[in-house]
């Protein structure tokens, strides 16, 4: 039962020339959101841009008494709508529909949680990390970015007690290369009898590689996919992901309803 709120911008914190965190007053969404869920945001008046855009719920914001007060979005500027989210000003209102979609499965100890994030794919992991750490799950964030300036919120995760594995493409922080490399090393090294749950969000290639690695080492893996979404509500069938069928064919499921979180194994990766 999603709600549509005309959410006031509480604060807009730029993180870099392309990334920002937008805090929105939306108590009803904040109260209902589970880690991995998303909202559909209309960042413009008028009909151009026309459609809403999907954003993961980044943080659930709470007042001093701990009551949900709003959500924040981790935004990367790539086109017209994300540019508007980037330059939104406090006091403006932005239509925000949610929470939507199937969230992550939050494991319990003794399972360990390994979150794999590429770039803005970090977005769902702040909320997931909080939920995991609240259950005292040992949690690691594998976080890959292009360069050190595009690594955000590291202290936030550290303060939660989340272990960090960092890679950057240019080697300016952590290990140089893609984040799947340390993930594979750690998977290979880990005792098969320990429970480990892998979560991933980021570019399609990274998701596929993560799902493949998890499968190789027989670990459960949930990935949050990004498809172009017309409605976010199951109405338009635009957001489909091809899933393996038992007969060896593929079946298109709507990632806004069956996902965005899907089992990595079930997806028919190209």
């Amino acid at each position: 039962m999603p709600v549509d709120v005309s959410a006031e911008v509480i604060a807009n914190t730029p993180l870099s020339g392309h990334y920002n965190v937008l805090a929105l007053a939306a108590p009803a969404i904040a109260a209902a959101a589970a880690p991995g869920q998303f909202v559909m945001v209309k960042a413009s008046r008028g009909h151009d841009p026309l459609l809403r855009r999907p954003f993961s719920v980044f943080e659930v914001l709470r007042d001093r008494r701990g009551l949900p007060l709003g959500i924040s979005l981790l935004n990367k500027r790539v086109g017209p709508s994300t540019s508007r989210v980037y330059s939104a000003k406090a006091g403006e209102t932005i239509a925000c529909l949610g929470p939507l979609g199937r969230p992550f499965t939050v494991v319990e100890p003794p399972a360990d949680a390994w979150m794999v994030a590429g770039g803005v794919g970090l977005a769902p992991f702040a909320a997931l990390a909080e939920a995991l750490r609240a259950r005292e799950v040992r949690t690691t964030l594998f976080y890959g970015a292009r360069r050190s300036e595009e690594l955000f919120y590291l202290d936030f995760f550290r303060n939660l007690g989340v272990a960090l594995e960092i890679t950057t493409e240019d080697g300016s922080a952590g290990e140089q290369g893609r984040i799947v490399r340390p993930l594979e090393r750690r998977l290979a090294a880990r005792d098969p009898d320990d429970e480990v749950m892998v979560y991933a969000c980021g570019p399609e290639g990274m998701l596929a590689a993560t799902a493949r690695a998890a499968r190789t080492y027989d670990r459960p893996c949930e990935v949050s996919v990004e498809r172009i979404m017309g409605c976010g509500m199951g109405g338009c069938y635009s957001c489909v992901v091809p899933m393996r069928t038992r007969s060896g064919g593929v079946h298109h499921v709507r990632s806004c309803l069956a996902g965005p979180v899907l089992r990595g194994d079930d997806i028919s990766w190209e």
Partner: protein
Amino acid sequence: MDFSVHIGSLTLKNPLIAASGCFGYGVEYADTIDLSTLGGVAVKGLFLSEREGHAAPRIVETPAGMLNAIGLQGIGVRRFVDEHMPELRARRATVIVNVCGTTIDEYVEVSRILSDTEGVGAIELNISCPNIKEGGIQFGCSLTGTFDVVNAVRHVTTLPLFPKLTPNVTDVASFARAAEDAGADAVSLVNTFLAMVIDVETRRPSISNVVGGLSGPAIRPIAVRMVHECRQAVKIPIIGMGGIAEARDALEFIIAGASAVQVGTANFVDPFIWAKLLDGMTDYMRRHGLSSIGDLVGTLDAAAREAGSHA
């Protein structure tokens, strides 16, 4: 305020219908809005069997519009009847089923199954989908094709029958006439405009099917013109659509000659649009001293304002 609309044996509570392909099978919205408050729910186009549709990407946004080529992914009419009709009935939705086919026989067979199903309110015959190779638009772009498929379905069903016309023709009014002649109870128009977007960086089409159908506010002025033309050509009711996003847009179609309207793309932007549209229409009717929406249908005063013209 009387918002009811009568089309053949069907009574709609109000003129606002969720457009086919833009509202899933209706059940997706059942927990979000009260389906019984809508005039009707036109469910996603159904063939006899299941279809997987086209590969993603299936949509791309355009200025004030969107292009889609879903490829009519669907569960087939039998699964629809078994899996979703019970819930739609329980929710007291007025169900209009959008019927597809690749042959006349398939249209007939799907329609026959629906005629035997309790709770189906009407059949909307989709002879205008621009996104599939076989069937559909090949009927919708030929006057005899239109006549033949409507006529064939007419013989197997007493359900109200609304052929849905394509705007991709020179003279849409002649297609409305063909549908009327073949026994249609109303015509729905417009389906989407055949269109294309290219990703200039890759020099490839932006959607997998190369071409797709344009919908949304961008097309509204063309759709309104077509409703106006059809209003002058046929006597049966018209169900108008194309870019409706506000109460004034719905009223515009009604004034142009539509008895009811459908809303597609705008429902993606705002799933709570229905109450807003009805509120806006109520306010308009109050301001204009109207008590029945029927009194507004086709009231366009189209006398060209030639006063100052000296061509």
